[in-house]
């Protein structure tokens, strides 16, 4: 059966370090529609995820390489990214 929600999750900096991987395929259930809800769903996957997402408000998110807010819907996304506030420049 074709699943709309199958996508790649990518993690950077201490989010990546806490989870212990830089990316993975995820397949969230249909009632999860925003990236904010996705953070909540991911946080329940295990200790390392709970640690990475312990303060959801500091997590920045991108859908298909564009910054989005936590209330953005991810339907149709190929890649959703989670990372700390940026410190480049």
């Amino acid at each position, binding site marked *: 059966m074709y699943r709309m929600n199958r996508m790649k999750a990518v993690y*950077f900096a201490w989010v990546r370090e806490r989870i212990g991987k830089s990316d993975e395929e995820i397949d969230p259930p249909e009632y999860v529609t925003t990236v904010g809800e996705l953070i909540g769903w991911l946080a329940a996957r295990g200790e390392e995820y709970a640690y990475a997402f312990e303060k959801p408000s500091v997590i920045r998110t*991108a859908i298909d*390489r*564009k910054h989005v807010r936590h209330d953005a819907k991810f339907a149709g996304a190929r890649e959703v990214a989670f990372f*700390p506030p*940026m410190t*480049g*420049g």
Partner: protein
Amino acid sequence: MATVRIQSEDFDAAAEAAALTADRKDVGAVVTFTGLCRDEAGRLATLELEHYPGMAEEEIERVAAEAEKRWPLMGVTAIHRYGKIEPGGNIVLVVTASAHRQAAFEAAEFLMDFLKTRAPFWKKEHNRDGTSGEWVSAKDADDAAADRWLQGNK
């Protein structure tokens, strides 16, 4: 059209600035900003820059396109390095060219402010004492610097 590059190799600020004015005589002002790695009073051994490949380039291109919309620029170059950088080494370069100085200055500041808060790069510090360092925290001051352009209060 801006030139944007994400690379681990060092850059040559002078060559990039020269490229923006080569063969043209209508440029009156060139502003070059170079961001360098500080040793934090001798504590820091290396700075490690992680980035989001693909998005880093696209995001800086978006910021550069916005700068070109806001100011009458004759050239924009932005280069951001990733990987390990030693104190004294280059991290980021922004060059803007315009007929007049105010546009060149403001566009360069704008680019740096947004590059700091929107370009997906993260710095991790490796210390001289061998401890492997903290991820650098984002600064409220940087958010405030970027916000001033949104509020039109500059």
